[in-house]
């Protein structure tokens, strides 16, 4: 099986002309099947920018990137959108739709898949909510859930479509210590069960122990690797 994420010499800059600022310089990064990789580094070092490139949320500028077998350099919006459907995103804020309840939010991630009936979508959403421990909260809107519960719904939404890769940007930053660790442990357990690789940006030292590997960035470059733990 090919590695889910392979980056070589990826560079990225914001702005034009005088205002042009390089944010990523010759970044190389590889995530192997089933691997959990944490990305850390000082604020402004380009972690989020890198994640948006891998997640096909931004168009590439320079370098080569292959994510889930899709070549990203020169990919059009349609190709990038198709790739995004195969990636599970977990954001710092849960970003659930406020007017939908928990199971409807999770089922939204399945409405893009052809050939599923409404019943199948809802039963898969229910099963996923049960496996994140929220079977009793299926019918609540996000406003009636705690921060940790919302983030667990977001994990269920990211995983329900059987993604080939999970991308997360500081998913525990908005949570207190206990629920942050709980959410991190849950994410790790679910990813392990399904053999889904995770690339997660975090500043949170309490969850570094979940990683197989930690990648540190500084000023747009990847700092040579440290062993995990």
């Amino acid at each position: 099986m090919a590695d889910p994420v392979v980056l070589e010499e990826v560079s990225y800059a914001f702005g034009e002309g005088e205002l042009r600022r390089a944010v990523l310089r010759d970044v190389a990064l590889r995530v192997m099947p089933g691997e959990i990789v944490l990305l850390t580094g000082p604020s402004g070092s380009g972690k989020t920018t890198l994640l948006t490139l891998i997640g096909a949320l931004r168009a590439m500028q320079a370098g080569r990137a292959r994510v889930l077998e899709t070549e990203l350099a020169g990919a059009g919006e349609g190709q990038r959108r198709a790739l995004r459907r195969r990636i599970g995103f977990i954001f710092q804020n849960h970003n659930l739709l406020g007017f939908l309840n928990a199971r409807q939010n999770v089922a939204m991630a399945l409405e893009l898949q052809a050939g599923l009936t409404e019943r199948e979508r809802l039963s898969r959403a229910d099963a996923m909510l049960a496996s994140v421990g929220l079977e009793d909260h299926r019918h609540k809107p996000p406003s009636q859930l705690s921060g940790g519960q919302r983030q667990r719904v977001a994990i269920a939404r990211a995983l329900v479509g059987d993604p080939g890769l999970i991308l997360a940007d500081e998913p525990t930053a908005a949570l207190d210590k206990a629920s942050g660790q709980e959410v991190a442990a849950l994410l790790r357990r679910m990813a392990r069960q399904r053999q889904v690789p995770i690339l997660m940006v975090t500043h949170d030292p309490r969850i570094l122990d979940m990683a197989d590997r930690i990648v540190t960035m500084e000023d747009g470059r990847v700092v040579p690797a440290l062993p995990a733990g």
Partner: protein
Amino acid sequence: MSLLQSLYLPLRLSWRQLRAERARLLAAMAGVMFACVLVFMQIGFRAALFDSATALLSAMRAELFLMNPLTTASFRPEPLPRIRAQQALALAEVRQSVPVYMAQVTWRNPESGTRRAIQLVAFDIESDAMGFNGLAALADRLKQPDAVAFDRRSRPEFGDVGRLLAGQPGTPLPVQIGGRQMNVMGLVDIGPSFGADGNLVLSETNFRRLLPNRSVANVDLVALRLQPGADPVATQARLKALLPEDVVVLTQPELVAWERRYWEEATPIGFIFTFGSLMGLIVGMVIVYQILFSDIAGHLREYATLKAIGYSNGYLARVVLSAALLLAVLGFVPGAVVSAVLYDVVGSATFLPLGMSWSRAGLVFGLIFGMCAAAGLLAMRKLRDAQPADMF
């Protein structure tokens, strides 16, 4: 995704979003309803005006008409020589030639004594050239001196003639018309128009008694009744050749259209109602646009999230358009009900023939639908601000 799903799922999503914010939904519905009622009333008034303006002419039972070409509207006729009525009889196809006299005189309300202009319609009652309801039963009594028939649908300012007559069965009601004492023998059905608030029907002889200064050589309109089987258009052509340029020969539809054109083109009335409808649609569109726009602006993060997890711009555009069309339906239904009630209330207060019809409801729904769709298309541009790259 099947075609059905790709339409149904965005529709369901936008319905769930609309439903979640009741106050905003009600405001949007009220906006659409407002536009809907406004358009219904404007279109209703417009149609009622044109219908009532031509009711008198439509009720005439004749195939061809002679009229002075300078006549712009029947409430203000230019006279034509009476001799033309006889000349028309030279054609074998013309069975009967009925001179019609029209004028407005003052009528004194028999209850309150106030005065108001009323339309006179005079002709040879025996000719049977007018199809007004109730006229046939009164034909004999209208031959008596100073006898008139009163249009029961005249505006109430003329007095409740129907009740007064009913209070004295068999006895005519004395009234003052144009300074002369006349007798109302009974009631007919014509209906007021924007040019005439009420109507009186009387014989040619009584018309002359009432307005002795009018030249006997002039008439206001000539109704020509043809032999059974005669072709009105061919006869019209022969009459045009026969008669001098000082009269026009019109078929009944042409006469009605002539009258209608006056109200549509020579008065601002038609324009006013079109303009009113347009204003209603614009105001409604702005309201719906505002609601949809602030809906998108308030949910930008959610739309961006949907884009991030793989939803297309087209899908989100369908969500916004669905919301617009849901608002069209949700506002139109109560709007149409309110308008139907208003038609009843306003119709009975103004004596205008206002009424709801399926074709009109369909027309207004089409306009409201277009209005909401336009608002949706405008609001959709705001979706560009939902940038999935800014989500992390």
